[in-house]
């Protein structure tokens, strides 16, 4: 009786072995060496939300549309204006009108001619929205035209677009608005386009156009055959979305991706010195701040069951004193792992042209902070608690979002430092959507109460400082303002710098504004974050930072860096005879059958097939067990 069971088992093992042997050869090629295309693989932990440029809220969404579409005027290595959809431009004598020359002979990726009509259509959409005091989609792109003071566009012929502006500034170069094809979207108005579902493949004039979007997996771009400029070495660009940065970093180490966006400080340190990997620490165009709730400081308004918990927050002297209790150097060291810069004014240093350091900087000095609080009338009581002018112990609610672990760390430091001043801090974490709603005042709707004292969060800006400066305007209360700060004098300066005739004049006003926000301690900017990036150098060369001095490659403004990439293997080994030969043969093979097995239909069928096979195998095993049971059982139980 034992023998047959044994043999059956052996037979099963043999069958499994055979199956294993069949699978083995395919398992031996994990790297998919068969791909002859040169694919640039980019890793990010952001998950693309939309390929409609007017809908996306994420940096990765911007990358998708700027690879696919051109801006009218693109951004150069140092954010200077360079030709994009337009190849040249001239300004009218009075400076309020611009004539853009659209490059002749340009074509969309589908072969249709790309003309000034497309540019007029795209800018016209935004102008129509501005006229209605509305926005396209999520409302991030079209206000660019308003900020630039553009009032009208005309296209007298296919090669010319004329834009009129309210003033003689050159903010028109900052307009971050993709030119989309009129022959595809022309029948829709801005409302419909804002809501429209864009579908891959997209038609664009950019260096690579989106060919495929597999939600939460990857976005694949192919070379635009009709691109007007020099193209990068990559035949395709694949942006892969990772769930954790740990896995992304391992994929970079394994050579599966060429670029990893935003590994954390520890991971970046571990990657330094690895073979073929280079790390970059760039300055981010943004900061992390403590935003004090100053609701009612200018007009005495209060919120029932909401608003700041103490009037002390409305007092610039109180906020100023708090500023001396923050050791920003230590924060950069401990919270950012040393990657970042001490924060001061509201225009980040990466916008070097516009940034100024404060005239009256605060330094870390707890004793001085205490002294200033005492002097401003905030005394300690017998138990060591700091009292406000109403005689109530000051206890501040510090809220921060869960989007980044650095916020929680920074909050603990702040809690400790303020504690040393006799000010109790309750730190609490929220998901970003909730926090966004908590800080909104009734101006945004009756249900909002601005019920917080300090918000620890960050902002990221545009190449133009206006986006960040706007947050402090009176009319931002109810939308972007998280300090509820209102100062008509600031608003006046804002308008003046917007209409400044020269850059020097603008800079003077901007310096005034930066000092105003700093001196009144509207915000306490803790640090300017760093952009951390790691990339491989064994497949692609020519990585270039933007800005050159303190930026990073990719995920920047414009797509110049993609077009500068070269094939590292071609440069490094001039005569790779063997590999070239094998590559050549590999190229020849797949041509007859391009087999677009990429489609999901085939994959699903195959997976069902595999599953069915496994189920059948399991069934056979079970059947064997049961047969053995019934067959053997009766024999012995007699």
């Amino acid at each position, binding site marked *: 009786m034992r023998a047959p069971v044994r043999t059956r088992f052996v037979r099963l093992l043999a069958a499994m072995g055979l199956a294993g042997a069949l*699978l083995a*050869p*395919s398992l031996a090629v*994990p*790297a*998919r060496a*068969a791909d002859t295309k040169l*694919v640039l693989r980019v890793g990010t932990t952001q*998950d693309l*939300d*939309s390929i409609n440029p007017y*809908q996306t*809220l994420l940096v990765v969404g911007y990358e998708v549309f700027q690879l696919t579409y051109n801006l009218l005027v693109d951004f150069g290595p140092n954010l200077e204006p360079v030709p994009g959809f337009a190849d040249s431009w001239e300004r009218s004598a009075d400076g309020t009108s611009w004539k853009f020359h659209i490059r002749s002979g340009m074509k969309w990726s589908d072969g249709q001619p790309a003309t000034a009509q497309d540019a007029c259509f795209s800018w016209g959409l935004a102008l129509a929205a501005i006229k209605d*005091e509305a*926005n396209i989609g*999520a*409302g*991030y792109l079209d*206000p660019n035209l308003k900020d630039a003071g553009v009032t009208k566009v005309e296209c007298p012929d296919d090669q010319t677009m004329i834009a009129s502006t309210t003033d003689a500034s050159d903010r028109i170069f900052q307009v971050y608005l993709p030119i989309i094809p009129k022959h595809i979207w022309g029948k829709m108005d801005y409302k419909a386009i804002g809501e429209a*579902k864009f579908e891959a493949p997209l038609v664009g004039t950019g260096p690579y156009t989106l060919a495929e979007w*597999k*939600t939460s*997996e*990857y976005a694949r771009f192919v070379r635009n055959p009709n691109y007007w400029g020099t193209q990068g070495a990559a035949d395709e660009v694949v942006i*892969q979305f990772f*769930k*954790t940065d*740990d*896995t992304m970093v*391992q*994929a970079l*180490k*394994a050579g*599966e991706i060429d670029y990893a966006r935003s590994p954390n400080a520890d991971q970046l340190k571990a990657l330094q010195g690895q073979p073929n990997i280079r790390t970059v620490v760039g300055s981010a165009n943004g900061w992390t701040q403590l935003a004090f709730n100053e609701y009612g400081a200018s007009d005495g308004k209060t919120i029932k069951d909401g608003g700041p918990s103490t009037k002390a927050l409305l007092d610039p002297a109180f906020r100023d004193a708090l500023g001396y209790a923050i050791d920003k150097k230590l924060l950069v060291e401990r919270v950012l792992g040393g990657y970042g810069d001490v924060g001061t004014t509201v225009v980040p240093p990466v916008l070097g042209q516009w940034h100024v350091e404060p005239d009256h900087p605060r330094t870390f000095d707890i004793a001085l902070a205490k002294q200033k609080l005492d002097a401003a009338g905030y005394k300690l009581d017998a138990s060591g608690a700091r009292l406000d002018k109403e005689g109530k112990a000051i206890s501040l609610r510090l809220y921060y979002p869960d989007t980044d672990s650095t916020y929680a760390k920074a909050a603990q430091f702040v809690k400790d430092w303020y504690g040393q001043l006799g000010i109790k801090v309750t730190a609490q974490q929220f*998901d970003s*959507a909730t926090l966004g*709603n908590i800080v909104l005042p009734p*101006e*945004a*709707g009756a249900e909002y109460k601005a019920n917080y004292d300090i918000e620890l969060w960050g902002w990221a800006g545009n190449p133009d400082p206006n986006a960040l400066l*706007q*947050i402090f305007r009176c009319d931002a209360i*109810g*939308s*972007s303002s998280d300090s509820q700060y209102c100062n008509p004098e600031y608003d006046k300066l804002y308008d003046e710098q917007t209409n400044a005739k020269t850059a020097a004049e603008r800079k003077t006003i901007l310096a005034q504004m930066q000092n105003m926000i700093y001196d009144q301690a509207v915000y306490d900017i803790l640090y300017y974050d760093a952009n951390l990036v790691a990339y491989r150098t064994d497949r692609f060369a020519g990585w270039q930072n933007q800005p050159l001095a303190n930026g990073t490659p990719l995920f920047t403004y414009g797509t110049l860096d993609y077009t500068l990439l070269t094939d590292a293997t071609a440069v490094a080994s001039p005569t790779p005879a063997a590999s070239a030969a094998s590559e050549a043969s590999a190229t020849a*093979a*797949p041509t007859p059958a391009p*087999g677009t*097995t*990429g489609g999901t239909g085939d*994959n699903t069928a*195959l*997976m069902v097939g*595999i*599953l069915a096979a*496994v189920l059948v195998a399991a069934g056979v*095993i079970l059947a064997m067990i049961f047969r*053995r*049971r019934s067959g053997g059982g009766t024999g*012995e139980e007699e």
Partner: protein
Amino acid sequence: MSGRYLARQSAQAIFTIVMIVLLNFLLFRMMPGSPDRVNPRNPNVTVEQREAAKARWGLDKPLVPDQLVAFVVATAQGDLGYSMKYQGQPVVEVIGDRFWPTILLIGLAELIAIFVGLTLGAWTGWRRGGLVDRVGNGLSLILYSMPYFVIGMPLIIIFAAGLGWFPTSGMLTAGATYSGPLDFLGDLLAHLALPLATISLGLIGGYSILMRSSITETRNEDYIATARAKGLPDGKILRSHAIPNALLPAVTLIAINLGYVVGGAITAEIVFNWPGLGTLTVDALNSRDYPVLQGIFLFLGVSVVLANFVADIVYGYLDPRVRR
């Protein structure tokens, strides 16, 4: 089996599913946060626009009854709605895309774990106190107590990033085109190896420990003593008398676990970037994508109820006592 037994079981199952539908709706809306896609931190968005965005998703109406009724009516018609995160992709499509990857990964892992785990458990239980037991049971306990990411990350570091035998993550090479089904299959299997190993290893412990205790109990039964007295060989007693009787508790565990297969293994899927239902659940939770969350949990709930229903029926078939 009586018709009444079947009817009672079915009624129970249907009642449970209805409760799941209602709970799904309310639970997610009790979470703080909003699926409001319009970011309040966008400096350019007006109050009116945020209201309009809410209206688009029906979020401006009262939760009960308006939103609830609309949801129940739609669900009853098989309409699960549209994803808020992915700009209006139908939920059925979103879930459908993630269904097969999860079934493939978790289903295969369950099969391997059941087979290996039960065998290991039977063996260690039979040799209780011996070297096999100490090593086998110790190993089971270690694996049982390890979260998937603790098993998975070292596998990635060693076999993917280190030795380069397998890809680190994903189900297929992103954006690849294949020259044929074999090419595709090879790519899939290479990507499958590490996550499959991780989840199998993680599941083996549970099955093994259960089977071990179950076998240990049957060892002391009279019929085992009888078989021994008859002079049956040891292996024969294990296979023909101990295992079949010890399998009953395992059937319950298997049935319950199979119901959860569609839930995916969240931590494992995340570590390996596997495009399954587990990662979808996390994404949907993070973005408060109510329709997708409702869809997933409805699907998961129904699967668990069905698996238990089937287990009940099978039990009734195996053991006449429960049929009453």
